[in-house]
């Protein structure tokens, strides 16, 4: 990879590449899986990947604004999980399934 990507000298580039890798894994999970709970977990992986990128740039630029932003992202993720999981429970009681291919009544073809 050249001198900008020395494998044994851990730089911000390593953290960013790890972040991109985790984000792609999470996005692939959202596309592959059909279980709504697992899709929710994959979205959490993607959020964490973005958090790694924010902290990596923040530390690399000698600031801590990125870290404060990660704090807000974690707070929003907590609110999102509370609302999302209660919606999933209501959905399961209504439809008796969590397969997102079968939960398509908003399309109007129920």
């Amino acid at each position, binding site marked *: 990879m050249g001198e*900008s990507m020395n494998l044994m000298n851990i730089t911000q580039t390593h953290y960013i590449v790890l972040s991109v890798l985790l984000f*792609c894994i999470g996005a692939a999970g959202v*596309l592959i899986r059909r279980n709504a709970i697992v899709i929710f977990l994959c979205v959490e992986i993607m959020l964490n990947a973005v958090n790694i990128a924010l902290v990596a740039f923040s530390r690399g630029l000698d600031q801590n604004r990125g870290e404060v932003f990660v704090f807000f992202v974690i707070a929003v993720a907590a609110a999102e999980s509370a609302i999302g999981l209660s919606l999933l429970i209501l959905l399961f009681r209504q439809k008796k399934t969590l397969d997102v291919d079968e939960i398509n009544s908003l399309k109007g073809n129920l």
Partner: protein
Amino acid sequence: MDSTALISFIKPVVFYTFAATAVLSAIMVIVSKNPLYSAVNLVLTFFSIAGIYVLMGAEVIAVFQILVYAGAIMVLVIFVIMFLNLRPSLFKIQFKHVFRSGLAVVFMTALFAIIASLFSKGVGVYMEHAQKGEITQAAIDAEGGFQLFSRALFTEFLLPFELTSLLLTVAIIGVVVLIRGMIKPGVSKKGQEK
């Protein structure tokens, strides 16, 4: 000088250990057929990412990561998975669309290759030429990471911080409103007594 040589040897080892654990357990989250195994693997991912944060020098975020993500959110998720008591038949129909899954994997691998090859040179160049701030590692060692983090949070970001509490209140009220419809009046104890 001996300790710096030791640190420069240990840092890559720790980084690759945590990174490999995070990536492998993230893959296990996708591959596991049982959502409960996915959730437990995700806890492992969160702990590995917390280790990465400590390695980067962001201990504050590592603490929040373990407290909020691995502690609160994952307990909620595992509780909901057990509460729903999904039948085993629901686990079988995960990989029925092989073509779609393969396409997603190929597309995401290509996306990773493109972005990583762009960033592998771009980030280093950007870090060299960008304007640096004042929160260096030396400043954190002198004043403490929590002090500097809190100073930024309670001065520069005070309004977003207060709005966060408003957001959490809205989330709590929203959950209560959502769940209230589940409690039917005839099923509750007062209804039976009537």
